[in-house]
């Protein structure tokens, strides 16, 4: 299995819950446990928080694989604010891979 789910939301805080719902739905379908689903929910939000003030739309791609969920968020940039750094710390602690790319950020959560 190797599917991609594309999601594009207006960069407005009210739509962030749509992203979280999508992420937890995909993670649950893949069989992640409750704790892992929570980790994924937080990290996808953190990536979007980073982009929120700078872009008009937020583009995300969820890669659905047999034993992993990958998340790409376009437009991510290294945080400079204290809060942004907290967000980055949370992402790097909870995801298996967090990689800044030319397009934005790439994260992987693998099933235990």
């Amino acid at each position, binding site marked *: 299995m190797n599917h991609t789910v594309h999601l594009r939301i207006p960069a407005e805080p009210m739509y962030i*819950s749509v992203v979280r719902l999508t992420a937890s739905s995909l993670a649950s379908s893949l069989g992640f446990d409750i*704790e892992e689903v*929570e980790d994924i929910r*937080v990290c996808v*939000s953190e990536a979007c*928080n980073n982009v929120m003030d700078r872009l008009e739309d937020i583009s995300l791609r969820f890669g659905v694989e047999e034993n992993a969920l990958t998340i790409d968020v376009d437009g991510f940039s290294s945080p400079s604010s204290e*809060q*942004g750094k*907290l967000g980055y710390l*949370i992402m790097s602690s909870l995801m298996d891979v967090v990689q800044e790319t030319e397009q934005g950020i790439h994260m992987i959560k693998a099933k235990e």
Partner: protein
Amino acid sequence: MNLTIQKHYDTETGAWRVTAKGDLDIFSSNVFRDEMLAAWSDEKSDIYIDGADLAYIDSTGLGAFISLYNKMKQDGNEIYLENLKPNIQKLFVITDLDEVFHIGAQQ
């Protein structure tokens, strides 16, 4: 908003008692911070937050607690977070904020 805040000043213990129900995220954290700051300015004392129904928090919510605390600490007041769900408590530990706030998990 995706967050419901209830608060009252408990004259017996001389502290704020607050329940926060829902998501403390980029959509709600500024309102939460401003509302708590206004309350604390009225009655400067410790703040106890019951997190039993707090479903979600991220760096924006943590940031709200930090800026609230930065104001409160000049007057020697503290923030207590009680009954936190494990996934929320974990974020305070990861960010070392469990050393800034008094954190209590769900029993």
